[in-house]
């Protein structure tokens, strides 16, 4: 029963993700992005990672989606296309979606079988090196600071241009 519920939520989440690219207003796209985040958080909770699900809700729905909804609330997305063009775009999108999802799923399915290393060896090599890298007491601080510096630098460069335009 749990299995069907998980796949049901997965289907609904992917449907929200795909419909995000076919709505006319950016506000609706932002709301659908929030629904995708809620769906993924529910998936985490159902697969036994409830804490990750809570953080996903806090970060994506509470923070980012609210930010997007407030910022893009009044912006129209693009001019309407004719029905034929819309249909052609939908068909191309569906073809591309199926091809890319199939390629990724094929990679997931085939990669361990073709690999000469077992899962335990992979854990020993890759994960232990990752653990050693991330397990430092100051690693989180470094990552957050690096990202903040990058964002602050970019924002300052762009803000200078905006100020020049306005003033």
């Amino acid at each position: 029963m749990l299995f069907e519920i998980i796949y049901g939520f997965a289907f609904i989440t992917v449907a929200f993700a795909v419909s995000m690219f076919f709505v006319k207003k950016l506000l609706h796209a932002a709301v659908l992005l929030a629904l995708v985040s809620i769906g993924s958080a529910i998936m985490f909770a159902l697969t036994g990672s409830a804490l990750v699900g809570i953080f996903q809700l806090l970060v994506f729905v509470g923070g980012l989606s609210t930010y997007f909804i407030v910022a893009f609330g009044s912006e129209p997305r693009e001019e309407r296309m004719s029905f034929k063009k819309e249909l052609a775009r939908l068909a191309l999108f569906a073809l591309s979606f199926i091809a890319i999802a199939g390629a990724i799923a094929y990679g997931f399915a085939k990669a361990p079988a073709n690999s000469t290393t077992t899962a335990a060896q992979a854990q020993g090599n890759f994960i232990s090196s990752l653990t050693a890298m991330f397990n430092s007491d100051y690693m989180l601080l470094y990552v957050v600071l690096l990202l903040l510096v990058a964002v602050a630098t970019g924002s300052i460069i762009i803000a200078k241009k905006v100020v020049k335009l306005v003033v």
Partner: protein
Amino acid sequence: MLSALLAIGAALAAAGISGIIFSRNFVAIMFAVELIIISGIVIAVSFINSFINASTAAGAMLLISLWAIAAAEAIATVTLYAFMKARGSNFRVDKLNLLKW
């Protein structure tokens, strides 16, 4: 459970890549990038559940890094949006030329 999370991760990544290919609006493309980051988080959680010992902090660090990247991308999106709006420019990427400095 691993396969369910991998399947949804693959589907979300495919939707995001297709969105980047077929969207012409700058903000919609940034939403697609956000979708790809969500798919990365889903795949990371499935691998952390399967391969990483829960007593280590590696999984949490990886997820926090991904959330930080998503937040940074959102800030960059809204900043660029404000910049483009201030210039009164078109949000269609095929008509985008304002990033010339």
